[in-house]
């Protein structure tokens, strides 16, 4: 069983959480000016590193809060 640490509730079982993808993907500052390719990059393309990855998670069955964390994609160890 993988334990994930919610910043509010502490360590809880993985099944209480949902994954939210890469963290720090910001909405385009000037969306009107984006080309189709730039939109596609924003909407569909994400980093896929082997190693440490900043991610968003939500404690969906608990306090329902979103938070950022760093997970090692090889070991699934949470580093923050």
């Amino acid at each position, binding site marked *: *069983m993988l334990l994930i640490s919610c910043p*509010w*509730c*502490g360590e*809880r*079982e993985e*099944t*209480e959480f949902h994954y939210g993808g890469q963290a720090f993907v910001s909405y385009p500052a000037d969306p009107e000016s984006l080309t189709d390719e730039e939109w596609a990059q924003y909407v569909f393309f994400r980093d896929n590193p082997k190693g440490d990855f900043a991610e968003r998670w939500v404690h969906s*069955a*608990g*306090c*329902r*809060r979103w938070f950022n964390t760093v997970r090692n994609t090889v070991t699934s160890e949470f580093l923050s």
Partner: protein
Amino acid sequence: MTVEDLRRSPLASYPGVTEIPFLTMVNVRVPPTGDAAARISARLGGPLPVVPNSVVEAGRRHILWLGPDEWLVVGPDGDRELPGMLPEAVDVSANRTTIEVRSRDLLEHGCTLDLHPRAFHAGRCAQTTIARTQVILWQTSDEPVYRLLVRGSFATYLADWLSDAACS
């Protein structure tokens, strides 16, 4: 015929499980510090708890921490004042019913939280899953006595599961 005559609790005819039906519950969303929180605390007669997953007693009501800006205020059945007393509150009384459980061993069959007294005790609450069902788990006494606040449509499933787990 009044509303009280028409209402039915999910476990009204369910044997073997102690239900505390029709508790009055309101959900409060407000920033934890500031005028609104102070006014609500004064109105309820107790502070909105800021320690995650803790419960504050405020007269005949209890205030449960659900999130850094979210609380559940639980009053007795027939608490007619509570639903309308706070502009930031939404009446969610019909959302959940309450099951009382007096055994830690029983809950541990389907709950992954550490319920040992060193980690969980009276005055603590947690939103978690028991037997894959989302519940608000609230310990009201160190005997121990627990309350499970569960959505009405899941109540018979959880009651079935509790009855089954109690036999194993």
